């Protein structure tokens, strides 16, 4: 006898498990794909979040995001052990740089990782440099002399020579070519700079240089070194500003007048090193670093050194980014539950198919005396073999491709791998269980009571969760599991509703006069009503799938709409111009630009001292013209509400205050610059008038009571005529507003927000979820029909024996799923429509849309398309399954009746 005859128990189990390789392969594929997507998604999300965080940090100027400290005085000269400086600077600067390097070794590792090599420079205060010959036509120039120990590595002298330390004679320095040209400064020309205390310093330009790398972000710390700046004072001649580099070893010259020197030290923030996964710890470490001043020896005129406090906007940016990250994590988790639930249903269907194939073997084994434990064990082993290998393969591939880490990566693969381990023995033993007789009912009264209780419990849990989420009674750090599971709970309630409703409706249809409808009209509803075998799977798939798709679509629309309205609120008009200074002529010409209907300048903005009985504050005062601003913002939903009380004369100065300030003030009386003010209205703290969050707006007529300078416009809001092109007008307005002016339109701000990788990543995930649930829905419907094929084929064989034409057969198939799907579809839509209203208020979406107002729920144009889309997918799945079902021949089916019964 051959070796095959000697197969032992294990061999036989393996043989049994490999008899339906297609089904096994299918289950394997479902597990592997689910595990893959589940493992890859966290990595994708983490990467998107990191990109979003870096994007936000990149958008802030390096001088703001780097950790910068400045102090009046010069560093104490001395050489360090190994400061890594150019030779000419070591002797003077080595000690300070060494000190900074040493300090960074004590930083929190999270912080040390993202900070670059520390930098230090000393600047002699900017001052005008006068030509030795009066009125010789040289442009007015304001020079800032900088001592930078590392400047020689950043510049290359193209003309003349590098400055050298001098004992006597004029101080030597170098300028960049454009700055030297703008200042009209020839190489070798000497000019004089008056310094405090009657000192007159003479300086000589020894050479002009070009930057080694103009794109080096380090230049952001010397804004006018590469290109000159310009200061305009009304009718006076404009002043050209620029930074010149003196020999760093010549610091002694500056040290002689410490009251005129500012030393700036900074640790550059290496944005590419920032990672969203550790952003929370990083922001905390940054705050701690800013709060504890460093001690470095500085020669200062101050008697008492407070140490160096390094500050940066980065912690704030990261914290804001974190709210975005948390919302995104919650949202992705929330959306992922949908496809995951449907995937598990599909997987359960696949294992049921396998279990049906195992049924004869299981029954045989049972009859021959195989214990339940043995049969369950063999099935569980088979499930484990499928689940573990597929889960591991998909999970590892997804992890490698997604690049995520943490336990969250393993969560979905583990779930997917475990499903067949549990489902295969459970369904296997269930389908192999002999029903005493074919006509015995599948459910007993006790089972029906249990089902009702379970359904009531589910509804109660869902209701409680909804109330808790909607009322906002809970405050949960991070991702709220209740919010995440709510969609699934609501969808489950939808399923219960559908499953209760379908038999009821079918009974109604069945009771309607059958004679009119012919054979199919009689058999269709009767079968659908009395053979409810596998209705749960397609109903769950349809309800969850449609709910998640509708929600995703509505959510995308809500965020998109939120961005548009936040951008509108941020700009405050059709166009907003921000410039350094706008004179009356420029305002006039702006108003006359073609396409501009009205202008509303912010006539003045000044940081002012404000007092409350309980505390002192700093408040920004914006001067506006109530009539102008009202006209410009007319019809804008985000317009600043300007009550008439602003125009009242006499008494306390009427102002509109930002919400943030109004909250701070409460019932107390606010006094600004010694004058009591009356808060007659409040507005959103983030305002198009300026960047302050605690501010008051006062009408021009009362402005002089709070400010000394009531005309220094730098911001203008423009209202355009209908049909005017905002882009073209904005460009013209920008040109008309002098150098350095910036024009913003709602569209341009919106574009900036949309560039955030978090947003595009989120949209990709929303789209992916819709596609995934659609595909899974098709699979679930198709598999349900395939599972029902045996009983249907028997009946079709009978019917064809009675003379039913084959072309009518698909109608029977359609009757199997159509009633459930038709009822489930609107239920899914309802659940999907309810979700955004329940979930959006529970998530902080301001991080996505900008602004500080939670966006209102919008369904958007695409949402109505989701329903026909899903209907089309379902119909397609039914048609394919119906077509596949036709291949069975009647003879074979009739012969197999007994075996399967």
């Amino acid at each position, binding site marked *: *006898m*051959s070796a*095959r*005859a*000697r*197969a*032992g*128990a294990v061999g*036989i189990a393996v*043989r*049994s498990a490999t*008899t339906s390789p297609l089904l096994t392969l299918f289950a394997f594929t479902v597990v592997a794909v689910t595990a893959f997507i589940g493992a890859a998604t966290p990595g994708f999300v983490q990467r998107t979040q990191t990109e979003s965080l870096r994007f936000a940090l990149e958008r802030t100027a390096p001088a703001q995001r780097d950790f910068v400290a400045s102090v009046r005085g010069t560093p104490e000269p001395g050489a360090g052990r190994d400061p890594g400086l150019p030779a000419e600077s070591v002797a003077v600067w080595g000690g300070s740089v060494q000190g900074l390097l040493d300090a960074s070794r004590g930083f929190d590792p999270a912080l040390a990782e993202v900070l670059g090599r520390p930098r230090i420079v000393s600047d002699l205060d900017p001052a005008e440099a006068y030509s030795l010959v009066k009125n010789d036509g040289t442009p007015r120039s304001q020079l800032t002399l900088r001592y930078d120990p590392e400047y020689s590595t950043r510049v290359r002298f193209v003309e003349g020579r590098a400055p050298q330390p001098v004992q006597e004679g004029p101080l030597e320095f170098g300028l960049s070519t454009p700055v030297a040209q703008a200042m009209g400064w020839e190489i070798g020309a000497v000019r004089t700079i008056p310094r405090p205390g009657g000192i007159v310093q003479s300086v000589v330009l020894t050479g002009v240089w070009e930057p080694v790398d103009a794109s080096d972000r380090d230049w952001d710390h010397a804004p006018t070194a590469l290109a000159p700046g310009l200061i305009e004072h009304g009718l006076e001649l404009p002043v050209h500003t620029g930074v010149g580099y003196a020999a760093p070893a010549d610091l002694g010259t500056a040290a002689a007048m410490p009251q005129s020197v500012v030393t700036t030290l900074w640790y550059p923030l290496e944005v590419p090193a920032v990672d969203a996964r550790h952003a929370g710890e990083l922001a905390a470490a940054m705050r701690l670093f800013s709060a504890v001043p460093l001690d470095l020896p500085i020669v200062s005129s101050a008697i008492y050194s407070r140490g160096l406090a390094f500050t940066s906007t980065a912690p704030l940016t990261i914290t804001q980014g974190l709210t975005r990250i948390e919302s995104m994590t919650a949202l992705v988790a929330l959306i992922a539950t949908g496809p995951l639930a449907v995937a598990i249903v599909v997987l359960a269907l696949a294992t049921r198919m396998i279990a049906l194939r195992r049924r*004869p*073997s299981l*029954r*045989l*084994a*049972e*009859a*021959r*005396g*195989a*214990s339940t434990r*043995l049969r369950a064990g063999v099935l569980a082993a088979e499930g484990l073999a499928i689940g573990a290998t597929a889960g591991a393969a998909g999970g590892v591939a997804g992890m490698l491709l997604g690049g995520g880490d943490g336990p969250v990566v393993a969560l979905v693969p583990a779930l997917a791998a475990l499903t067949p381990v549990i489902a295969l023995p459970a369904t296997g033993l269930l389908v192999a269980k*002999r029903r*005493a*007789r074919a*006509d*015995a*009912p599948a459910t007993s009264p006790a089972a029906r009571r249990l089902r009702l209780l379970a359904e009531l419990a589910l509804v109660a849990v869902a209701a409680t969760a909804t109330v808790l989420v909607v009322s906002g009674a809970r405050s949960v750090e991070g991702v709220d599991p209740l919010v995440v599971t709510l969609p699934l709970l609501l969808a489950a309630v939808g399923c219960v509703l559908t499953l209760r409703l379908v038999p009821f409706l079918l009974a109604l249809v069945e009771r309607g006069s059958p004679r009119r409808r012919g054979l199919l009209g009689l058999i269709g509803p009767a079968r659908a009503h009395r053979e409810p075998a596998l209705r749960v799977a397609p109903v769950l798939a349809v309800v969850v799938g449609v709910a998640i798709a509708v929600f995703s679509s509505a959510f995308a629309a809500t965020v998109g709409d939120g961005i548009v309205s936040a951008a509108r609120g941020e700009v405050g008009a059709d166009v907003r111009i921000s410039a350094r200074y706008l004179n009356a002529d420029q305002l006039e010409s702006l108003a006359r630009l073609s396409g501009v209907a009205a202008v509303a300048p912010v006539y003045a903005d000044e940081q002012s001292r404000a007092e409350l009985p309980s505390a002192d504050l700093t408040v920004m005062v914006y001067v506006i013209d109530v009539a102008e601003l009202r006209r410009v913002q007319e019809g804008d939903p985000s317009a600043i509400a300007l009550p008439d009380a602003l125009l009242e004369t006499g008494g306390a100065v009427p102002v509109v205050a930002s919400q943030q300030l109004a909250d701070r003030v409460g019932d107390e009386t606010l006094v600004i610059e010694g004058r009591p003010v009356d808060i007659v209205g409040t507005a959103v703290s983030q305002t198009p008038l300026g960047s302050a969050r605690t501010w008051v707006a006062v009408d021009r007529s009362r402005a002089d009571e709070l400010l000394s300078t009531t005309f220094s416009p730098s911001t203008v809001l423009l209202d355009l005529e209908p049909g005017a092109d905002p882009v073209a007008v904005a460009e013209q307005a920008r040109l008309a507003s002098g150098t350095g002016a910036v024009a913003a339109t709602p569209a341009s701000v919106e574009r900036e927000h949309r560039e955030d990788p978090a947003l595009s990543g989120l949209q990709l995930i929303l789209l992916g979820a819709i596609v995934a649930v659609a595909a899974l829905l098709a699979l679930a419907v198709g598999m349900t029909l395939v599972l029902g094929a045996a009983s249907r084929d028997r009946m079709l064989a009978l019917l064809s024996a009675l003379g039913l034409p084959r072309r009518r057969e698909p109608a029977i198939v359609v009757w199997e799923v159509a009633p459930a799907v038709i009822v489930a579809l609107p239920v899914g839509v309802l659940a999907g429509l309810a979700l955004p209203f329940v979930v959006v208020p529970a998530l902080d979406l301001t991080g996505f849309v900008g602004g500080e107002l939670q966006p209102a729920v919008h369904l958007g144009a695409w949402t109505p398309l989701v329903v026909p889309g899903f209907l089309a997918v379902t119909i397609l799945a039914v048609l394919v399954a119906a077509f596949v079902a036709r291949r069975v021949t009647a003879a074979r089916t009739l012969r197999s009746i*007994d*075996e399967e019964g």
Partner: protein
Amino acid sequence: MTVDTAEAGPDILCAGLVRIFTAQGVEVQALQGLELRVERGEMVALVGASGSGKSTLLTILAGLDTPTAGSARVAGHDLVAMRAPERLEYQRSSVGFVWQQSGRNLLPYLSAAENVGMAHAVAGVVPRARRRAVTDELLELLTVGDVADRRPDQLSGGQRQRVAIAVGLANDPRVLLADEPTGELDEATSADVLAAMETVNRERGVTTLIVTHDPAVAEHVDRTVRIRDGRTSTETLRTTHVDEAGRSVRVAVEYAVLDKAGRMQFPAEFTQALGLRERVRLSLEPDRVEVRPGDAVVPPPEAGRGRHRAASDDGERS
């Protein structure tokens, strides 16, 4: 365990066996007090029309279902009182089955020898070392040794059923239960398979119960029990004897079965011929019991000779 090691009693003993199925409030009595006794080593056919309760009885005897009332003992096991572990033990070593469909007997992806091996592996009764020898021996006994390495779809119907018998006997059971073993076979092959069962019964002393509605089966067994409406109705005993001319003659005598409560069933042709309906008159004669239609107006002349009793058809059934 309630294994009867004395081996004194019959191998199959059913008394007053009742099995009621409840379907949506409607009760179906599949077995209504069935009596059956099969002695050790006997080969008995159980025949009956479709729906008479044959398969229900066999499912109970196989330990796959439990009766609603009554008692059933097989190979010393009390099937009513039996708990799960004993049931496994019973299925593993005391009974073997052959069903009508090969799909329920044999796994399609295993060869004949492997199917026998599977029965060994599941039960674990036969020591590992002996399994191969037992397999070979059984397949040879059933004359399918030459196709041991073929899978069921490569075997003829008769071969399949013989392999199924081999699988049923794999663990050397005391009782072999067969449910329509020839249901899917033509006449010649049926005879072949039944002959194989006879061989097994004779050579191994396996008590064999064949459930069938095929009258041809009756020719191969000495005793045929007929069940009707869930009750044993008649028994036919066949004996072979040599007549005066030296020819071997097989004689069949059919008996009605009287249960412990004194109930019996009349064949339909008897009741129709005499118009026996509802009430009948019984009278005890010295050597027999007479049954006459109950609606006779005039008392029969012989009335005084025996004791008279009127029996109601309904009363008897309830």
